[in-house]
């Protein structure tokens, strides 16, 4: 599938991406009649209201709350960064944060290699089998994370799962993916299963947007299939790769649904402070510790924002997607 974007990219005499708006755009701003400027604002206004109400206001409020502490005696008290100091010295928060970071470091490369490999395979050949495979591999994206985690929880389970039978055939004890040692792998599998298809579709669409004559030109120059993949295909889909990497990073650092659901099945393995988000949830809703919960939320949001921002800055020359 091609989209109008790649059909007429470059056909535009003036591209008005914000980064490129230099002198010309600034002078245009002044030339635009006031009435039309107002219309522009009217188009943006409804979203701007929602943005202020449900993003800016909660963030500022979280920041405000995180600077206070509620005590039974003495009421609300300004404590500046005490909650943050507490969070960054709290073993629960540190362990949760280090878990999601370790998890991202393993998950993201694995997921990208798998989705890229599938996309490259699907790009080589088009027939009914390939088309059906593409759709079926994408299907888990439509499944709520809660249900996906539940399904895999069943498959891992001693009571319902097939692992005992399957490993019984070769006379081995079944691995318990809900145990302390293997929960990392168990969660890894669930997240890859859930998202690889979505990322694959994005990469596949980007691969299909490449002009096939480039491959012929490379082949005439003596390039092998592997060289075409590494030197032509991958560089050309770099913006798509950056896009999915950013998605994966944002998604993984706020890990919540899957461990929250498996918590019941994997009793004793997944505690209420397994990830920072679960810890914030526990602090706010089980312990009514809203100030500390807000501080954890805000710290997590800030960490994700900074990580992604640094990443975008580092990769900006490679053709970042937000440009």
């Amino acid at each position, binding site marked *: *599938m091609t989209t109008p974007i790649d059909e007429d990219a470059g056909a535009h005499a003036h591209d008005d991406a914000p980064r490129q708006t230099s002198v010309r755009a600034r002078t245009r701003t002044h030339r635009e009649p006031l009435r039309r400027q107002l219309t522009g604002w009217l188009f943006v206004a409804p979203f701007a209201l929602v943005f202020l109400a449900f*993003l800016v206001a909660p963030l500022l409020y979280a920041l405000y709350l995180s600077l206070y502490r509620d005590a039974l005696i003495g009421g609300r008290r300004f404590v500046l960064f005490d909650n943050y100091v507490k969070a960054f010295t709290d073993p629960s928060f540190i362990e949760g944060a280090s878990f999601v970071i370790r998890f991202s470091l393993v998950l993201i490369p694995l997921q990208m290699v798998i989705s890229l490999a599938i996309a490259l395979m699907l790009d080589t050949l088009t027939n009914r089998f390939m088309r059906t495979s593409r759709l*079926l591999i994408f299907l888990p994206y439509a*499944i709520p994370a809660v249900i996906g985690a539940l399904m895999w929880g069943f498959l891992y389970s001693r009571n319902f799962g097939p692992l005992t039978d399957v490993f019984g055939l070769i006379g081995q004890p079944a691995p318990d993916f809900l145990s302390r040692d293997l929960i990392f792998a168990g969660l890894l599998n669930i997240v890859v299963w859930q998202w690889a298809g979505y990322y694959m579709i994005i990469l596949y669409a980007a691969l299909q947007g490449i002009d096939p004559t480039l491959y012929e030109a490379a*082949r005439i120059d003596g390039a092998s299939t*592997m060289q075409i993949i590494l030197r032509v295909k991958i560089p050309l889909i770099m913006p798509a790769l950056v896009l999915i990497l950013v998605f994966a990073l944002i998604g993984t650092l706020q890990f919540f649904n899957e461990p929250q*659901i498996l918590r019941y099945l994997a009793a004793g393995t997944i505690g209420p402070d397994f990830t920072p988000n679960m810890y914030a949830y526990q602090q706010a809703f089980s312990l009514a510790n809203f100030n500390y919960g807000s501080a954890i939320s805000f710290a997590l949001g800030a960490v994700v924002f900074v990580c*992604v921002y640094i990443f975008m800055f580092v990769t900006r020359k490679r053709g970042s997607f937000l440009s």
Partner: protein
Amino acid sequence: MTTTAQTSQPGRTASTTPTQRKPHPYLPMQVLLAFLVVYFLIPFWWVIVNSSKNASGLFGGSNALWFAEDIDFVGNVVDLFSYDNGIYLRWLGNSAVYAFVGGVGATALAVLAGYGFAKYRFAGRRFSFAVLLGAVMVPPTALVIPTFILFSQLGITNTMWAVILPTLLNPFGVYLMHVYSRDAVPDELIDAARVDGAGEFRAFLQVALPLLRPAMVTVLLLSVVASWNNYFLPLAMLSDNTLYPVTVGIGQWQGIASANNAGGTSLWSIIIMGALISVIPLIIAFLSLQRYWRGGLSIGSLK
């Protein structure tokens, strides 16, 4: 995987004549892909098979990946929809309301704002757009607890609005609509409409909107999926179980069933059936809207 790709012929040009060369030059790759498809389908298969079992079939130690002697599919459906006065149907209805109202609302806001950013030069545009791009990187779950506290002071937690209103926020949707409007709606076309005497809003409705349809369907689908699959937000906002969406409802059942492992055995068969039925609406939506999202999902990742 890459080694398999290496042995096969590259490019679309070669794919037209594979049968003339060797019998099956792509066979190893297709076999590998078939294995992957099986992996991606295993959980679905397990749920379909086990939704047909009763408690004794589930716990009786029979084959977990094959049907039991007595298939009790209908019985489980009846049990599911009659349990606790048919609360499951209510959860499905709630999910549909949250997904539909939230999804349509988020899409409408995204289309308007994306088009506004792409086609108008107004004071503060560059700054607002930079803020928007920053917002794409803010993890939505970081907003849940502060939003909950704000809403509780306004007294609107534990209402449908508490779930719907925050889902209207979709910065990535605005970004997608901006990119698409910029490239798919020529300025000349809008100018022509203006010359013909159309107002700004009429030019948008009658000239631009039809051109934006593929991106709109994509943003709508992404928003609907995001709200249908949402768990953290409704879990935090709602305490009345008649307002739960299906994700929170099934999560709660699963917690109950796991807590009393012995007494909860009858609950497991309706949980499995509930999981199966809850995934059907979105699968149907994706299969029937394929032709739109297949192209649309790549918006923003192409240069």
